[in-house]
C-alpha cells in the first residue's frame, strides 16, 4: 500500500494526464499520417500525369527511341523506383527495368485489381484508387501510381488510325516513387510525440510533487516535529502560522498544546499545595518556559 501523500497524489494524476495526452497524440498522428499520405499520393499523381503528357508527342509519332530515352532519364532520378508503360493487354512496352520488357503484367496484382476487379475494367479512377503502397523485392517502401493513357481525339483522328474512337484506354503508365521520405517524416513525428508525452509525464510528476511539498508536506512535517517535541516535554519550540485548511489544523494543534500546558501547570501547582514543600520542577526546561515563549505566542506568519 502506498502510504506517502505524494505517492497517492502523483499516481492518479500522472496516469490521467499522461494517458490522455498519449491518446490525443496517437489520434493526431493517425490524422496527420492520413493527410501526409494523401499529399504524397497527390504529388505522385501529378508527376505521373506530367510523364504521360511528356511522352504523348513521342507516342503519337510512334517514336520509340525518344520514349525509351524519356523513360531511362526519368528513372535515373533518385526516388524513382520503377517506371513502365504497358498496353491495354498488359504487355510491357517500355520499362526502366529492361528485363521485364515484352512481358505481361499480372492483372490481379495490387494496382491493377482496382480497375480489373469486375468483368468490365473501370476506365476512370480517383487519385487514391490509382495509388498503391507496398514494399518491393529490394525491401524499399514504394508509392506507385498507375495512370491510364486515354484515347484522345488527336490519337484516333491521326492518319495512322491504329486506335478506334470507341477504345477509351490505350495503355497505362506505372510509376513507383520511394516512400522513404514520407516514412522518415512520420518517424520524426512519432519520436517528437513520444518526447512530448514523456515531458508531460515528468512535468506532471514534478509539478504535483513540488506543489504538495510546498503547500502540504512541509507544514505537516513542521507540525509533526512540534507535536513530537511537546510529547517529549519540550515546550520551547515555536510554531509557525499557516493559511487555509493547513492553517486551521495548525491553529487546532496550537490550542491543544496550549491547553495541555495549562493543565500541566495547574496539576503541578496542586501537587505543590498537597506536599506543602517547595520542590524543583520535574522538567528543568519548564522554568525557562515560564519566563519564555508560549507556543501560541511564538508563531510567525508564513
Amino acid at each position, binding site marked *: *500500500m*502506498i502510504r506517502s501523500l505524494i505517492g*497517492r497524489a502523483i*499516481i*492518479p494524476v500522472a*496516469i*490521467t494526464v*499522461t*494517458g*490522455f495526452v*498519449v*491518446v*490525443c497524440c*496517437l*489520434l493526431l498522428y*493517425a*490524422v496527420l*499520417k*492520413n493527410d501526409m499520405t494523401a499529399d504524397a499520393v497527390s504529388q505522385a499523381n501529378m508527376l505521373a500525369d506530367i510523364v504521360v503528357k511528356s511522352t504523348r508527342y513521342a507516342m503519337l509519332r510512334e517514336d520509340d527511341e525518344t520514349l525509351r530515352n524519356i523513360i531511362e532519364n526519368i528513372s535515373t532520378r533518385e526516388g524513382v523506383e520503377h517506371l513502365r508503360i504497358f498496353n491495354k493487354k498488359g504487355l510491357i512496352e517500355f520499362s526502366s527495368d529492361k528485363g521485364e520488357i515484352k512481358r505481361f503484367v499480372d492483372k490481379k496484382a495490387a494496382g491493377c485489381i482496382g480497375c480489373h476487379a469486375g468483368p468490365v475494367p473501370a476506365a476512370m479512377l480517383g487519385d487514391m484508387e490509382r495509388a498503391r503502397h507496398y514494399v518491393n523485392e529490394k525491401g524499399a517502401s514504394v508509392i506507385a501510381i498507375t495512370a491510364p493513357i486515354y484515347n484522345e481525339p488527336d490519337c484516333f483522328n491521326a492518319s495512322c488510325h491504329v486506335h478506334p474512337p470507341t477504345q477509351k484506354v490505350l495503355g497505362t503508365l506505372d510509376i513507383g516513387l520511394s516512400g522513404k521520405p514520407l516514412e522518415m517524416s512520420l518517424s520524426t513525428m512519432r519520436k517528437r510525440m513520444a518526447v512530448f508525452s514523456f515531458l508531460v509525464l515528468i512535468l506532471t510528476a514534478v509539478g504535483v510533487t513540488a506543489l504538495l511539498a510546498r503547500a502540504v508536506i512541509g507544514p505537516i512535517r513542521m507540525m509533526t516535529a512540534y507535536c513530537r517535541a511537546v510529547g517529549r516535554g519540550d515546550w520551547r519550540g515555536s510554531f509557525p502560522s499557516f493559511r487555509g485548511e493547513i492553517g486551521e489544523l495548525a491553529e487546532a494543534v496550537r490550542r491543544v498544546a496550549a491547553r495541555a500546558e495549562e493543565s500541566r501547570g495547574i496539576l503541578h501547582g496542586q501537587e505543590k499545595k498537597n506536599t506543602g514543600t517547595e520542590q524543583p520542577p520535574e522538567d528543568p526546561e519548564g522554568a525557562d518556559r515560564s519566563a519564555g515563549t508560549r507556543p501560541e505566542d511564538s508563531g510567525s506568519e508564513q
Partner: protein
Amino acid sequence: MRFRQLRHRHPEKPVKGEGGEASSHASRERIRRLRSLAGRDLWSMALFMAVSIVAYDGFAVLPDLPPGIREMLGTPPSAAAVSGLLVLYTFSALILTLARIIGGFGAYGGVYHVVYLTAFYAFYHLSGALPDNFWAVFVSGMTILTLECYHLWSWCSDRIREERESLDEENGQDNDSG
C-alpha cells in the same frame, strides 16, 4: 455510465462475549471479501487485453459480417467522428474516476469500460481505420482501467486497514475483560 456501487458497512462497536466473536468473524469475512474485490479489476484488464489481441488482428478470428447485415447497418461513421467520440469518452471516463477517487466512493466500472472500448474497436473496424487507430483505443483502455484498478485497490486497502484496526481494538478489549 453505470457503475457498480460497493457497499461498505462500518465495523460495529465490538461487544464482549458471543456478540463480540460474531462481530470479529464478520470483520474477518469483510477483509476476505475486500481482498478478493481489490483484484477484481485485473479481470477486466485481462478481458480488455484479450479483446485487443483479437482486434489487433483485424477481428480475423471472427467471421465476416454478411452483406445483408452490413447493408442494414448502413454507412459506418467516419474515422474522424469515432476519434472525436474516443477523446470525449476518455476525458469523461478519467474525470469520473478521479471524482470517485476524490469523493472516496467505492464504485468501479471496469467491465462497462471494456464493453465501450470494444465498441470503439468495432466502429474503427467497420470504417476501415482500425490499423491506424488501434493504439489510441488500446492506450485509452489501459489508462482508464489502470486508474480504475488503482482506485479500487486503494479504496479496498483503506477499508481493510479500518477493519484491522477495529479487530485489534476488539481483541484488546477481550484481553482486558479476560
